[in-house]
């Protein structure tokens, strides 16, 4: 028993150490990531080089530039990029990714206005003007005209990340907080089941990233406000030649409380995770996981490569989709940094979900619930037709007495082999009122030509026919494969027992077909639910959006209305529906269990 405890304590110490070292490092890295390779140590900056490039003849322009650089350096600020323009043309523009500031005509005009309104002396000295509303990045662009030249210089630097960089977690509150959360976690231990532990751990890690990038965002915002007042301040002080110095002095004092606040939040989030980790280790869960990892290493080594691959590609898009589903992410947010957008907690709300779900109306084609019912109907009918036609054909084609079955098989998989883009459009043509083959066939039976795409149920049938045609070969192939695992002796035995064909299908074929078909059906359901091409190409969602599926709706919202957040909320709803379905079928059919277990 004692050995056990010691083991746990050692594990705890190791985990906590790793946690504070790695997680802390990782998180701060994630904040600086964008920046880290842009920043440079100004102490090493070879001003001569810059000078040579800028304007070798005109020393005076560089006196000024040097001054700016030195002041920035003295204040521990990093200059990220510089660019030089002459009066009219952009000559160079270093690393546009970084500048994030876009010079439009509007800005240019404004700048000229300012130039004209002030006397040459101020014009030659320093800050003329700073970014505009169009400034989408988290960077600030300063523009100054260097004395005695017609060169306009851009000095770009940003502070938010640098101020976070030296931030160190203060250990005493950290430990106190950690203990507090540990106690809370312990108290809640009884009520929390294991799955929720993994979930909450994941959530907390996301939360920490969010809160911290939120801090960065807040700092940036405050900084912008402050900077605006500064520009005004600068312009008021007309007689001073070097205006930069007081500005930077102010800068450092203004930022003190902000930094303190940031450290506090940082500490709290770290503590929450720390507390949970202690609990995780002390409650024995960690040990159990480790033990099972070791014990079942063979099994895990078999599945890890595949699972890693899948999660690498799925996890990030999944988090992205989930996060923007709770925002109003739209076109205007496109240019900014994603991390920054996700960091601003103000962006989040349940507005989208509420808006989608609030009005219940089963007859209005533009209502969520109408589309939901239509989608479910579409899925159920499609999948049942796919499976029944597929299995029927497989059973027929599996009969060794059947002549020409090789040819039939090849012909029957053709819908699957030919790119569906063209065949779906051919189907659309086949449903044309006047020139379509379907109405041509109906005419042979004396039926009046039908205008397929003007009524809901006929448009639905047209979509259905196309999708069934596209989808049954797949189920047929799966069923054909599955039938191979059924030994012929079983049928013979069943025939000897005197059972009819139907009985032998029910008693022999069906149970052995099931394990292979169930996964195909579950996946087929999910795919049909999210079927996009057929609706888009055949009926186009018409008439009046009555044959839209949830997924085509989501597509239209995203790419026609540019409401990405709202579309993502649609996707979340679709996901939750399918998740419930998957969970439910898993329970009912025990699909993951074999017949021989």
């Amino acid at each position, binding site marked *: 028993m004692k050995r056990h405890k010691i083991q746990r304590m050692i594990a705890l110490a190791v985990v906590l150490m790793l946690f504070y070292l790695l997680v802390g490092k990782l998180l701060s890295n994630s904040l600086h990531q964008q920046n880290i390779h842009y920043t440079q140590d100004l102490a090493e900056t070879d001003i001569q080089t810059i000078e040579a490039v800028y304007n070798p003849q005109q020393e005076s322009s560089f006196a000024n530039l040097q001054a700016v650089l030195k002041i920035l350096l003295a204040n521990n600020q990093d200059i990220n990029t510089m660019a030089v323009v002459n009066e009219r043309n952009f000559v160079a523009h270093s690393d546009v990714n970084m500048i994030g500031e876009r010079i439009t005509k509007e800005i240019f005009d404004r700048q000229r206005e300012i130039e004209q309104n002030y006397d040459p002396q101020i014009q030659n000295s320093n800050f003329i003007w700073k970014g505009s509303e169009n400034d989408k990045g988290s960077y600030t662009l300063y523009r100054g005209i260097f004395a005695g030249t017609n060169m306009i210089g851009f000095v770009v630097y940003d502070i938010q990340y640098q101020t976070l960089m030296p931030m160190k977690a203060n250990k005493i509150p950290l430990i106190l907080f950690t203990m507090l959360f540990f106690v809370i976690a312990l108290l809640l231990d009884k009520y929390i089941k294991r799955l929720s532990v993994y979930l909450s751990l994941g959530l907390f890690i996301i939360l920490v990233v969010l809160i911290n990038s939120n801090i960065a965002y807040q700092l940036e915002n405050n900084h912008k406000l402050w900077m605006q007042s500064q520009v005004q301040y600068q312009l008021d002080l007309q007689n001073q030649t070097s205006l930069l110095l007081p500005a930077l002095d102010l800068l450092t004092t203004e930022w003190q409380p902000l930094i303190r606040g940031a450290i506090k939040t940082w500490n709290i989030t770290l503590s929450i995770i720390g507390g949970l980790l202690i609990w995780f280790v002390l409650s024995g869960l960690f040990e159990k996981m480790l033990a099972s990892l070791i014990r*079942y290493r063979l*099994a*895990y080594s078999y*599945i890890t*490569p*595949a699972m890693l*691959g*899948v*999660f*690498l*590609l799925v996890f*990030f*898009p999944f988090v992205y*989709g989930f996060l923007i589903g709770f925002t109003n992410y739209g076109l205007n947010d496109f240019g900014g940094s*994603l991390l920054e957008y996700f960091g601003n907690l103000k962006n989040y709300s349940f507005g989208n979900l509420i808006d989608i779900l609030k009005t219940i109306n089963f007859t209005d084609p533009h209502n969520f619930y109408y589309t939901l019912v239509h989608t479910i109907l579409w899925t159920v009918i499609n999948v049942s037709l796919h499976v029944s036609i597929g299995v029927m054909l497989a059973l027929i084609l599996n009969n060794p007495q*059947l002549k020409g079955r*090789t040819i039939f*098989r*090849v012909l*029957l*998989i*053709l819908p*699957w*082999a*030919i*790119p569906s*883009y*063209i*065949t779906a459009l*051919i189907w659309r043509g*086949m449903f044309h009122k006047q020139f379509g*083959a379907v109405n041509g066939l109906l005419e042979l039976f004396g039926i009046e030509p039908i205008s397929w795409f003007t009524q809901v149920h006929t448009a639905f049938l047209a979509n259905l026919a196309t999708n069934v045609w596209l989808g049954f070969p797949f189920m047929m*192939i*799966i069923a*054909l*494969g599955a039938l*191979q*695992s059924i030994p012929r002796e*079983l049928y013979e035995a069943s025939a000897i027992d005197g059972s009819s064909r139907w009985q032998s299908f029910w008693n022999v074929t069906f149970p052995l077909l099931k*394990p*292979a078909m169930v*996964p195909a059906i*579950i*996946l087929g359901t*999910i*795919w049909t639910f999210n079927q996009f091409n057929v609706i888009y190409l055949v009926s186009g969602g018409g008439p009046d959006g009555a044959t839209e599926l949830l*997924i085509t709706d*989501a597509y239209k919202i995203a790419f026609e209305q540019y409401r990405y957040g709202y579309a993502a909320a649609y*996707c979340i709803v*679709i*996901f939750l529906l399918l*998740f419930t379905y*998957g*969970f439910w079928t*898993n329970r009912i059919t025990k*699909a*993951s*269990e*074999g017949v*021989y277990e």
Partner: protein
Amino acid sequence: MISSNSKSRTIVTYVILILVTLITIYPVLWVLKVAFGGKSLMSTNLSLIPDNFNLDNFRAVFYDKPFVIWLRNSIIVSFVTVLSSLFLATTAAYAFSRFKFPGQKKGMLALLVTQMFPGVLMIIPQFILISEILHLYGSLWGLVIIYSTTALPFSIWILKGYFDTIPISLEESATIDGASKSRIFWEIILPLSKPSIAITGLFSFMTAWNEFILAATFLDSESKYTLPIGLRQMVGEFGAEWGNFAASSLLVAIPVVVMFMAFQKFLVSGLTAGGVKG
């Protein structure tokens, strides 16, 4: 043996089969009609014979378009996808089917979950992943990675379903003979699973063979374009080169049909016959 009853049943079977086959190939014959004559996708007469039979479209595809380059890229991408996804899927499916370990069911469910989030909005995060994290923008390897992982959940589920139907008694006797788990896997399970390996292989192949939007988004030079991009380049905002499109569609379908024919023998041979104790 042959009673009149079973004879009439055979006839009914043939009638059904021929009817279904006719309906199935009718649209395919339209593709043929378009490919062998003319530019229009539709036609006002319903006859399936091209109004003006010629091979111009095929000639155009081979001479005016870099069809061979597209084909080469598609073959590379598809085959690497098939190999890597089959390797990963068979091992994982075997573990899910034969081992008992914590997280087994959750793992299967998790694989299913990955299929549920609609792909509509995924282009941008996937772009970030491929270009900024994996640095594979513009490379065929980026596509291979995406395609094989896309095909994995399905392959694992199907293979596991099939492995489950292979009697465990076969392995037990091998274990008694002293075979290791991995030897059992390679020497007993895999040969027995040829039908479903063929199916999942074909499926992975199709995933890579037909995918358009990601390929068009992630590739940035025409020498790396795959077949689906080449095909869709024939479609513009207001019109399309339907004749060339139909001709290339047929060419695109040929490898799939050939592969299917090659796999057919796995689908008919009834490999497990005789090795079962019920």
